[in-house]
C-alpha cells in the first residue's frame, strides 16, 4: 500500500467516522470537537478548530478545537477584521491557505496563533444548507505546509458534511427550546389542571397542574379512565363520556362541574375538553384543561345562602309588621291612637334591626345595650332622676335570633310604664335587675322588672288593655320563640314581670 493510498483511506475513514459520530450525538460542542479531532488526525497536524460567526458577522468565536488551550476554546472571540484570512475565506466562500506565516503578505495572521507556533493554516468555510455561512474549519500546522489540492479537497468535503450536521443540531436546539418553553408554561400553570387522554379517554399525560389540582401524581393515573376525576354522581350519569362525545362531534365540549380529588374532596372546575386529531382528521385523543375555581364558587354559594337568608328574614319581617299592624288596629281607639302606637312599635323593631345590622361576624348585642336603647327611646322620662334603677352585669350577650322579640316585649313594658306605670305616676319607681345563672350547662339571663309606688286603676278599660300586647309577648311569645320562662303580675303597687331566657355562651 503506497503512502498516498494510505492517506486517502485514512481520510475516508475520518469522514465515515465523523458521519457515524454525528448521527449519534445531539450535542453541537461534542460534535464539533470530534470533527476537529478527526480532521487533525487525518491531516496529521493534531490541531484544528471551528470558528462560529457571531454578532451578525462582526466576530468569530472559537467554538471548538483540539490542540488548543482551554482559555481559547469556547472563549476567544476574534474580530472579523477586513485583512484576516478568516474573513476573506468566508466572504469568498472558498478555502484560503497560508503555507508559511513568515511569507504571508496578503493577510494579517492573528497574534495568538503566531504565539502558539502556528506556521501554516488552512481556512475552509462551513456553509449551512441554503448557503448561509456558519463559520470556518481551520486546520493549523506548526511547520510550513503546502495544503495541496488533495488536502484542500478533503477539507472542502469535510466542511460540506459539517454544514448539514450543524444545521440539524441547530434545528434540534430550536425545537428543544420551544418544547422546553412549552413544557415550562404548562408545568408552571399549576392553577390549571391539564391532562391528555387517548381516543378511549384513558389518561396518557398528566401535567403538574393536574397533580396540584386533583392530588394524584402522574404514575397513579396514567392509563386510568378520564372519568377518574368525576364525582360518583357524574360517573353514574356517564358525564365524562358525554363530554368526550360532544368534543368528538363538535371539536370542543365545556367541562364546568364539581370534580373529585384523590382524597374525596370536591373541586369546582371550569374548563373544556378538546378533541385532538391527526393529519387525516381522525381523533387521536383529548386535551382537557380546567381551572380550579372552587374558592370563587364557594363564595358564590355563600352569597346565595346569604341572599336566601336575607329573603327569609325580610319576608318574615314583613309578616311580623303586618301582624303588629293588625293587632294594633284591633286595640286602638281611633286612627290617631293607632298611628302613635304603630309608629312606636315599628321604631322598636327598627332599633333591634339596627343593632343587629351594626354587628360584625361573631358579635352579639348585649342586654344592657338593648334595655338602654329601649329606655332612651322613651325620651326624657327621668327629669328629676331616681325614677329608674338598673342593676346587672354588663356585656351579657344575647342570641341574635332572640333580639327582635325580646326588644318588642321590652318596648311594651317600657311604654306601659311611661304611659300608666312607674314612669308616669309621681311616686312610681322602676327597678330593672338582671343576673346570670347556669342551669344544665346553659347560661340563663334572669330579668326582674318591678314597678312600685303605682296606684293600679281598678277600672278595667285602661292599663290592662294597654298591657294586652306586651302581656301576650311576655307570657306567650317569649316562651314560644325563645324558650323563656316568664311571669307577669299586676301587683298592688305596680307590674312585676320576670323573664328568664337562655343567652349566648360567648360573653361579649
Amino acid at each position: 500500500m503506497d503512502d498516498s493510498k494510505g492517506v486517502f483511506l485514512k481520510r475516508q475513514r475520518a469522514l465515515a467516522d465523523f458521519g457515524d459520530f454525528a448521527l449519534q450525538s445531539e450535542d453541537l460542542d461534542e460534535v464539533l470537537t470530534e470533527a476537529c479531532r478527526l480532521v487533525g488526525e487525518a491531516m496529521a497536524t493534531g490541531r484544528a478548530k471551528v470558528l462560529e460567526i457571531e454578532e451578525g458577522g462582526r466576530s468569530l468565536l472559537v467554538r471548538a478545537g483540539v490542540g488548543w488551550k482551554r482559555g481559547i476554546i469556547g472563549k476567544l472571540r476574534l474580530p472579523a477584521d477586513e485583512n484576516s484570512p478568516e474573513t476573506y475565506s468566508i466572504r469568498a466562500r472558498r478555502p484560503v491557505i497560508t503555507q508559511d506565516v513568515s511569507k504571508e503578505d496578503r493577510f494579517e495572521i492573528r497574534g495568538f496563533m503566531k504565539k502558539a507556533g502556528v506556521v501554516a493554516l488552512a481556512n475552509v468555510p462551513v456553509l449551512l444548507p441554503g448557503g448561509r455561512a456558519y463559520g470556518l474549519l481551520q486546520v493549523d500546522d506548526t511547520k510550513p505546509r503546502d495544503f495541496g489540492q488533495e488536502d484542500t479537497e478533503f477539507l472542502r468535503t469535510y466542511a460540506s458534511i459539517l454544514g448539514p450536521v450543524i444545521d440539524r443540531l441547530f434545528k434540534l436546539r430550536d425545537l428543544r427550546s420551544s418544547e422546553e418553553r412549552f413544557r415550562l408554561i404548562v408545568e408552571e400553570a399549576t392553577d390549571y389542571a391539564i391532562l391528555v387522554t387517548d381516543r378511549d379517554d384513558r389518561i396518557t399525560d398528566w401535567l403538574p397542574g393536574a397533580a396540584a389540582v386533583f392530588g394524584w401524581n402522574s404514575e397513579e393515573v396514567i392509563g386510568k379512565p378520564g372519568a377518574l376525576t368525576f364525582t360518583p354522581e357524574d360517573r353514574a350519569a356517564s358525564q365524562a363520556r358525554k363530554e368526550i362525545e360532544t368534543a368528538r362531534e363538535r371539536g370542543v365540549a365545556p367541562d364546568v362541574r364539581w370534580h373529585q380529588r384523590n382524597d374525596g374532596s370536591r373541586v369546582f372546575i371550569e374548563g373544556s375538553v378538546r378533541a385532538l386529531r391527526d393529519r387525516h382528521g381522525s381523533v387521536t385523543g383529548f386535551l382537557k384543561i380546567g381551572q380550579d375555581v372552587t374558592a370563587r364558587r364557594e363564595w358564590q354559594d355563600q352569597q346565595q345562602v346569604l341572599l336566601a337568608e336575607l329573603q327569609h328574614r325580610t319576608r318574615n319581617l314583613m309578616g311580623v309588621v303586618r301582624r303588629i299592624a293588625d293587632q294594633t288596629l284591633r286595640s286602638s281607639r281611633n286612627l290617631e291612637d293607632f298611628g302613635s302606637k304603630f309608629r312606636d312599635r315599628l321604631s322598636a323593631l327598627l332599633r333591634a334591626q339596627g343593632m343587629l345590622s351594626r354587628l360584625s361576624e361573631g358579635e352579639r348585642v348585649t342586654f344592657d345595650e338593648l334595655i338602654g336603647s329601649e329606655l332612651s327611646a322613651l325620651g326624657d322620662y327621668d327629669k328629676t332622676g331616681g325614677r329608674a334603677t338598673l342593676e346587672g352585669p354588663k356585656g351579657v350577650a344575647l342570641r341574635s335570633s332572640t333580639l327582635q322579640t325580646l326588644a318588642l316585649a321590652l318596648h311594651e313594658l317600657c311604654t306601659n310604664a311611661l304611659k300608666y306605670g312607674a314612669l308616669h305616676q309621681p311616686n312610681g319607681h322602676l327597678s330593672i335587675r338582671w343576673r346570670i345563672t347556669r342551669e344544665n350547662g346553659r347560661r340563663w339571663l334572669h330579668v326582674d322588672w318591678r314597678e312600685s309606688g303605682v296606684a293600679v286603676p281598678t277600672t278595667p278599660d285602661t292599663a290592662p288593655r294597654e298591657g294586652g300586647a306586651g302581656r301576650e309577648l311576655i307570657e306567650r311569645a317569649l316562651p314560644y320563640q325563645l324558650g323563656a320562662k316568664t311571669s307577669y303580675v299586676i301587683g298592688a303597687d305596680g307590674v312585676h314581670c320576670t323573664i328568664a331566657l337562655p343567652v349566648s355562651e360567648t360573653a361579649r
Partner: protein
Amino acid sequence: MAACRMQNRRILIVEDEYLLASELAEILSEAGAVVIGPAATVRDALALIAQADSLDAAMLDVNLGGELVFPVADALTARQVPFVLTTGYPRRDLPAGYEHVQRIEKPLEPDVVADAIMQMLMAK
C-alpha cells in the same frame, strides 16, 4: 264555604316566629279548623305528630331559626299527611325529594292559605 270544609279538620302549624304562628292559628281557627301546635322547633313538631291521633294537613315553615323543617316533612310523609311549605325564598332550590311539594310564599295571605289547605283536604 272554606269554613265548612275546614270544619274540625286537624291542622298542624310549624312556624318559629310567634307573631306569624299566632296569626296563622287565628286564620285557621276562624275557618273552623282545629289547630295542632303551633310548634316552633323540629323537636316540638315531631312530638306533636307523635302524640296526635289524627292529622289532616300541615303548614310548615322551612326555616325554623336556622333549623330546617325537613325531618318534620318526612314524619308527615310517613303518616301520609299532606303539607304545604311556607318559605321566604321561593326561588331557592329545595333538597332532592321535595321539589314537588307545594310551596307558598311569605308573608302568608289568608286566602292563599285557605286555598292551599282546601286543596290538600280535597286531594286526600
